[in-house]
């Protein structure tokens, strides 16, 4: 009975999956007498409700971590916080579907796959086993492939294939890391590995373990699109519809950042290695993102390289591995995510039914001021916020960032300085 009671911790995932499945069964098989818009609203409302429930869970387990079902699942306060943020952002992304131009023939499939992908992300935060982690990530990636190709752009095949092969490369390396961990620790369980890692990392196996750790990190760095794995970024962003770009830029990255942070807890002995890796990659991302953004003619490509810079900053913040660093990283990420969603919502609202603007070329967006529309002003505000102009949100995230970096060490300022060129 006690074991059954522990199900309340799994309720968000279970309800999310079952509820969405029911909704979509209803959607596909009875669309003749059900208003599809109603289903769309229901789906969003459902995500929102689950978010509220997760918030409730967080207030129940503010301090403690709970392991249950034979060490298969683990819930920590950090997990719950990230889950709340993820669900909140997913709800906001779904809002873009309410725009008339996003309402096209295949929106049902898009919505369905998006929700399934979100389920994969949610469950990947929950598991305490590398095999289960792999399975849930695979589930989310399967959705992501389809999302990457699901549009009408001419070069979508190129970008989707790029995304596909990059993901599979990273998955292969991920297998390697699983094998390596099993070799080193004789277990797939994260808790057991955690218990052994202090001992094993200081032994001769350390070099091997660090190699496998690199392999593990590669997948998440790929999802977060940090520099050596950023080559898919601009192409995929350019060739997907706005809602999916927002999804890739916000929801997918949130999970990647969670795993990039959580690995500190699994291998505390490898703290220095992980921290240095993040720091170096973050700095390179900032520099490359900053200098690639010039001479771009496509707004989405500009956004892609700009987001590369933001990712670099967040990675540097995560590299501290401390509570303050993570808090700041979360604040920065939320401000970035809200900005991205606002950006894509306004971009989508400019598009007409024929989707001639869907590539986001700057030439198509010329003279928005002539429209005499509040949207133009909002779009300008969003861009100003990205540039970090006070008194908008982007400024405050950068202000706190600078304050934090000044405490950490003066050389970090350099990275911010590079960032300043970004607009």
């Amino acid at each position, binding site marked *: 009975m006690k074991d059954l009671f522990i199900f309340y911790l799994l309720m968000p995932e279970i309800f999310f999956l079952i509820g969405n499945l029911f909704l979509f069964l209803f959607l596909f098989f009875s669309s003749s007498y059900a208003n599809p818009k109603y289903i769309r609203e229901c789906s969003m409302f459902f995500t929102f409700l689950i978010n509220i429930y997760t918030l409730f869970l967080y207030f129940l387990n503010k301090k403690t971590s709970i392991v249950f079902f034979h060490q298969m699942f683990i819930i920590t306060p950090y997990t719950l916080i990230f889950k709340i943020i993820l669900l909140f952002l997913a709800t906001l992304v779904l809002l873009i579907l309410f725009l008339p131009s996003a309402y096209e023939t295949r929106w049902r499939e898009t919505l369905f796959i998006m929700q399934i992908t979100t389920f994969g992300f949610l469950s990947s935060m929950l598991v305490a086993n590398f095999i289960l982690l792999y399975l849930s990530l695979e589930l989310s990636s399967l959705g992501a492939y389809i999302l990457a190709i699901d549009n009408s752009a001419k070069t979508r095949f190129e970008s989707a294939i790029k995304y596909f092969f990059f993901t599979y490369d990273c998955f292969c390396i991920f297998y390697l890391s699983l094998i390596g961990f099993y070799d080193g620790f004789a277990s797939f369980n994260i808790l057991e590995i955690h218990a052994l890692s202090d001992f094993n990392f200081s032994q001769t196996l350390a070099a091997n373990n660090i190699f496998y750790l690199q392999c593990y990190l590669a997948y998440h760095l790929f999802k977060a699109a940090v520099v050596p794995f950023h080559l898919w970024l601009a192409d995929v962003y350019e060739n997907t519809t706005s809602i999916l770009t927002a999804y890739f830029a916000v929801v997918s990255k949130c999970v990647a950042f969670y795993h990039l942070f959580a690995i500190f807890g699994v291998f505390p002995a490898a703290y220095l290695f992980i921290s240095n890796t993040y720091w170096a990659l973050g700095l390179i991302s900032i520099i490359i993102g900053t200098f690639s953004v010039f001479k771009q003619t496509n707004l989405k490509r500009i956004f892609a390289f700009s987001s590369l810079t933001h990712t670099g900053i967040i990675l540097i913040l995560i590299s501290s591995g401390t509570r303050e660093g993570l808090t700041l990283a979360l604040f920065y990420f939320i401000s970035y995510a809200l900005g991205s969603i606002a950006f894509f919502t306004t971009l989508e609202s400019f598009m007409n039914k024929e989707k001639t603007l869907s590539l986001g070329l700057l030439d198509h967006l010329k003279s928005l*001021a002539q429209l*005499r529309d509040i949207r133009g002003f909002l779009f*300008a*505000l969003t861009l*100003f916020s990205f*540039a970090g*102009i*006070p*008194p908008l949100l982007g*400024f405050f995230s950068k*202000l706190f960032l*600078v*304050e934090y970096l*000044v405490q950490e060490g003066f050389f970090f*300022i350099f990275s911010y*300085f590079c960032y*300043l060129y970004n607009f």
Partner: protein
Amino acid sequence: MEIFLIIFLFLPLLSIFGIRHITFLGLGNLKALLYLNTMIIAQGGIILSVFFNEYSPGYMFIDHYYNLYAFDGISVLFLVITGILTSICIISLCEYVKIDQRGKTTLKLLLGIQFVLINFFLSKDFLLLYIWFEATLPLLFLLILLGGERNIKLRSSYMLFLYTLFFSFFSLSTILYVTGIVGSSDILEIIIFDYTPLQQYVIFLGFLISFSVKIPSAPFHVWLPHAHVEASTLGSILLAGIILKLGGYGIFRMMLPITPISYDLDANYALILAYLSVINVSLILLTEIDLKRLIAYFSIVHMNISLIGLFSGAKIALVGSVGTMVSHSLVASALFVCIGILYERFQIRNMTYYGGLFNTSSTFSTFFFILILANFSFPLTFGFWPELLIYAGLSLTSYFDLSVILFSTIFSLIASIGAFTKIFFCKLSLFVFFFKGLTNSEFYLLNLSVGLNFLFGFMPMTYLEYINRRLIFC
């Protein structure tokens, strides 16, 4: 008393809201609303300055809830200028621009700038000062983009934006440095703290670099003429009248009180910048034929003379410096109104095309002549007394510097008189016959400016004494 703060802070926002919703009442009510808004701000400031803080040099009306906003004698002065200039802008906008969607957007931007400026002048916190200092940028950027006609407006608005934003990074890092030392960003706590000479040196340089862009001093002044040329009349009035003063106000408010040692030892950095820009720009003035550009360069000269006053080390020059800012904001904005009058009729800024305008409009030429006199600080005009104080202060420290400045002001005299003769007296150009005289609101506007000019020219002690009383703590 804090109700005054609240009224001042939120009146422009209310007006923006009103523009959106008052259209069904007709255009007349819209104008009335806007005049009311600006009049309350301008006259409220005057009333406050006269009655409420007669002999108090420090802050008044501190908002005790958040401890972020407060009045001061000097900030009230700039508040009044903001009110007067915004009303001038609104009158000129209603005169020249049709109040359609574009005109309304311009009005909203204008009121937004007013809101930001009021917040800037009332804030009592370093970070807040920085935030509002920067917040003028996007609004001005949009104002220039809306007002300009040529494609080059993109370049000038970028220049305005990037110059100020890039160099304000120094200001931000200095503010963070100061707040890191003190542990608070409240201005009263920051002033009390004792800084070591090295700390003062860092703070001094950081603020000097970022504010010398806004003033603007010589190597960083490139954005200003471009921005002036591309902005509409309204944008020019705002830029010359109040935005340039943010730099001087920032130095006055944030830099001087906390760096007394550097003020004695390192003032030469600022003075070199100021001398260089005065000499450089005075020489540029001789060759300039674009009217707006000419007045823009005049603003650079005046603001740098004001900078010299700030750093010359004499109390009397400090008073003159603040006085120069005040007088220049009125004179330069009135001159931009004059140029706007010409430009709205003929769409030409090049002064060589005008000639013999005196024959068709003697009233306008009289106004223009008086304002030009005030511009090169002719005795008994508004601009004369504060600059006299600066020169008097300089004579206490260095006669060489004084002679350099006086020598270079001769060039600005030649340029102003040259511009006046070219427009009003040289070879008669044909199309000036289409000049049908001033409209009513233009007439009253110029009357107001010239009247104020004479008032403060003949009775300078009215405002110089006021400033002097407020500068006790310096």
